[in-house]
């Protein structure tokens, strides 16, 4: 295997690690965010059933962080 080939494989590996970190870390971050919002949302819905829709929207708001992570990962992999 030539030095160029080794460098290409290493670059690909680094890209993959970067993409994995982007998705993984944003996943953890949104999990942390959703923990508090989810607990509050379940508490509110337990007392007022009609708050379900609103509570659900608030709970999934941190999911946007993962979407950003996914976009970044795709850009890393396919750019």
């Amino acid at each position, binding site marked *: 295997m030539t030095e160029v080939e080794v460098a290409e494989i290493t670059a690909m590996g680094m890209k993959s690690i970067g993409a994995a970190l982007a998705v993984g870390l944003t996943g953890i971050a949104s999990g942390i965010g959703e*923990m508090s919002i*989810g607990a*509050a*949302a379940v508490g509110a819905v337990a007392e007022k059933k009609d708050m379900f829709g609103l509570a659900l929207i608030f709970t999934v708001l941190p999911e946007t962080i993962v979407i950003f992570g996914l976009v970044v990962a795709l850009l890393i992999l396919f750019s």
Partner: protein
Amino acid sequence: MVQSSSSPGSYIYTSTRLRVRKSKLLTPAEYHRMLNMGLSEITRFIGETEYQKEVEELGTSFSGVDLIELALSWNLAKEYQRVIDMAPGTLKQFTKTYLERWDIYNVLTILRGKIQGLSEGKIKEVLIPAGSLNKMVLDRLLAEESCERVIDGLKNWHLEPVLQSHAAAAISSGSFSQMENDLYKKFYADLLKVEEQGVTGADQFIKFVKLEIDTLNTKTIFRMQADAVSKASRDLFIPGASFTLDELEQISGLSDQVEIIDALSARIRNEPLLIALEELREKKTTLNEINIKLTKAHLEQMERLSRIHPFSIHSVLVYLEKKKYEVANLRALARGKESQLPGDVIEQYLVI
């Protein structure tokens, strides 16, 4: 004191639930509507709110003001138990400790009822089994024939030594006021000891206890001034908060209301209470108005604390306190209507 750990999620869950429950309490507009209603309309109105289950359960056996009284007491006790069940970790322990005040209320109610020869059923109507002495213990105490036997039946209660020390004098004189003072003093002294145990969140609980002690002492000072109690009695005050007993004795010795307000304002850092004191300086008010104003300031400060520390014991305590005053308001409304008092007179006794 039990130290248990719970996830942050369960604190957030409980605090939010109680916040929502607090928002369901009766609004000033609803109180104003009730002020224009008759007793039966009030019963029907209450029966459509959070008290529905109790009103329906008791509706077949009771009517009128007795039905309202009992439904309110049952609902309050049930609500307190539900909050204890719901609270996680240290919040549960603090809530239980806070609710132990109802033990004092229940024991004194039984003793006072017994000495006045009231029937078991009549005493039971006003008991709130929310503290460490549950329904079974209270029923056993109610079945006792005399005050001495009631006190003997409380051997395992942690405040029993205070009861025993005042028992003979209180029963012979028929007045339990000194016993009551000392029970509450011991109760608050025990609450303040929570700080020494190093439990997580104890600092917030202590903030509440000190706030309550300050409010109670302030009320006592104004009551002494209104009743023109000449001898400054330090026995009436609870130590441990913003003022020492010497300072409280000194302030209570002042005869002019403005001087009292100056002395209190110089040390109190709680803004709603300061505002209330300033308002009292500006116009002459009755003792009842002062009491209501101070209670409102107390609740306002609790509300502020619960906003500053949203997932602490404050959100539990502010709900429990507001619920207590809602029940007291409804009771005052029902009793006032039964006595055919005009709406504006009843309104003066409501904390809204």
